[in-house]
């Protein structure tokens, strides 16, 4: 168990310890979220390390990570709690066989915690005597509005009401990280309760540091060229720009192919690691790649 960081610099160092190279702006937002016990709302393009933040924080602080992956149609039974119906029915049968018929007794017996199945949200609030966990609500934009509305109650009061049992309340609020890819706008009411941060693509120096951290096996020259190439690529007019995750994957892929430096042919062959839309690949492949490679090399030489 690690104590919460006491300053923004400590937060940065904590993330760095876990091989997460963060901007100071992200560290500021995270530090505030930890101190103010507010959820941290991260938006950004795919592959810039939003989900990773929650994992890293959980690891760094020695907390459990509870992950709620959102999807369309997510409901209370899948997100908060569910009763174990099979066991309840068996219980009813047993009660009948044993001749017990007192209705109140039966009801309180059946709706007890023994038969409760905890789903991520409840798990994050009802963590027993441990330290509050890190709750990751991933890709919130994939759910529908009713779930968002439900989340409001949980995020502001840190409690869940189960009609049969009563209200379950967190002793101390969990550390909450919400991510969104922005396939739709999340309602302001949710954002109001959170600290907002837009995660941007990193600049060249930071991206190089990330690559060194995450793909240490890659030769230094290759890493430099890969980062310079990707940075150039991001200035192009593409449907989906490559994220940091793609940069790291690409660097690993090239290392696996024993490349020590970029050359247009290898780049052409491995472009699918970086770009995930056929239109984008068709646009870049060939002469464009050659030009980008030479530009990247020239930028490094300068």
């Amino acid at each position, binding site marked *: 168990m690690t104590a919460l960081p006491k*300053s*923004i610099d400590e937060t940065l160092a904590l993330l760095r310890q876990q091989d997460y190279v963060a901007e*100071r*702006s992200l560290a*500021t*937002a995270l*530090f*505030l979220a930890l*101190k*103010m016990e507010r959820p941290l709302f991260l*938006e950004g393009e795919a592959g810039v390390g939003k989900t990773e933040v929650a994992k890293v924080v959980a690891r760094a602080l020695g907390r459990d990570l509870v992950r709620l992956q959102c*999807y*369309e*149609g997510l*409901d209370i*039974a899948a997100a908060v709690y*569910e*009763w174990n*119906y099979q066991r*309840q*029915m068996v219980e*009813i049968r047993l*009660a*009948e066989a044993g001749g017990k*018929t007192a*209705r109140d007794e*039966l*009801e309180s017996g*059946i709706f007890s915690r023994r038969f409760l199945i905890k789903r991520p949200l409840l798990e994050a609030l009802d963590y027993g005597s441990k330290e509050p966990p890190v709750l990751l609500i991933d890709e919130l*934009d994939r759910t*529908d509005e*009713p779930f968002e509305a439900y989340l409001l109650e949980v995020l502001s009061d840190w409690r869940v009401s189960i009609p049969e049992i009563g209200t379950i309340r967190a002793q101390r609020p969990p550390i909450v990280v919400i991510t969104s890819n*922005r*396939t*739709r*706008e999340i309602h*302001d009411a949710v*954002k*109001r309760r959170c*600290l*907002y*941060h*837009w995660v941007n693509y990193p600049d060249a120096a930071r991206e190089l540091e990330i690559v060194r951290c995450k793909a240490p096996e890659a030769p230094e020259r290759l890493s430099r060229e890969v980062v310079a190439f990707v940075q150039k690529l991001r200035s192009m007019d593409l*449907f989906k720009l490559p994220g940091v995750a793609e940069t790291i994957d690409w660097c690993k892929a090239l290392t696996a192919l024993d490349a020590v430096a970029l050359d247009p042919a290898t780049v052409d062959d491995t472009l699918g690691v970086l770009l995930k839309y056929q*239109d984008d690949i068709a646009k870049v492949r060939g002469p464009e790649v050659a030009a980008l490679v030479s530009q990247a090399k020239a930028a490094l030489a300068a």
Partner: protein
Amino acid sequence: MGPSGKLAENVMHFGRLLRGAGLPVGPDRVLDALDALKIAGVERRDDVYWTLASVFLGRRDQFDLYDQAFRVFWRDPRHAARVRNLPEVRGRIPPASREQELSARLVQALAAQRHAAPAEPAAERIEFDAHLTFSAHEALREIDFESMTNEELAAARDAVARLRLRLPELPTRRHVQDPRGARIDARASLHASLRGGGAIIPLCRRSLGRRAPPLIALADVSGSMSRYTRMFLHFVHAMARDCERVSAFTFGTRLTNITRHLRHRDADAALAQVARAVRDWSGGTRIGACLREFNRNWSRRLHGQGAVVLLISDGLDREGADDLARQMERLHKSCRRLIWLNPLLRYPEFEAKPAGIRAMLPHVDAFLPVHNLQSLEELAATLNSC
């Protein structure tokens, strides 16, 4: 050190400044900001910057405004008033509190175009009602919008406003109780059982809930289209009133999101706001470029759950057809149904000759005319069944 006295006051004024510029910054956020500053400290300018950003912002597009406001305000508060006049502010921030501020010039311009005789609307209405026999209505339905008189246009607008528009409801992934549903609802069953003492377990059932898909309207506002587009926007406004998820864009030489402006309940007020927001009204067309912008910036945010896309355009593009075909293909692939409305279809001898039309045609699910009331009514019927 805590933010007290002068600093607290300044943060409050900064919050007010942001609110004045259109950001949803309430007193609660100002209090949050003070708490946050207490924690983060005010020793470093960039820390203060990001601290306030994390509290005051909620969307990425608010960022530029915040950045400007921060730079101006925290340098010299006397310049704060200037932020309100920066040109970028108007385009980016919803003019929510300025709905009444229609400029006189615009009111006149709109009045000249759409209400030729605004002086005695009541009299006109009575007269119109008197004439609205079956045959009069029939006749109105078939007149081309382009050749309607102003009175007829007004009558047509009323008719459009009266259309009842429904999109068919599609199953969602969420379950609702349904006595004839296919699945058993264990939770409800057990509850029902206990209500009766637990002796018998009546089976409750559930099935997938249903919801209308989102609708996206893309309207061409180039010169050749303007009259049809105006009527079509009335149609979209009626649509937005009846369905819950409707987004609308106009395009000519650039793409403009007019969803917010159409929310006004009154059709004329809504359209007046649209006219103010759209700057390329009656200009040229760059369909390919505008569709590309839509595909790149908006499609992933709006198409999410199987949208129906209505595209109204004559397909006469000034630019190359190659890119147009590609963008149409992408648009088609990312939505549930793509319906192209083309007023040129009113001509019986219409042929898909122009390159733009030939490029777009293979990628649409339905190709319909939209030049008179009857065609709009048919469109409503088509939407009902898609």
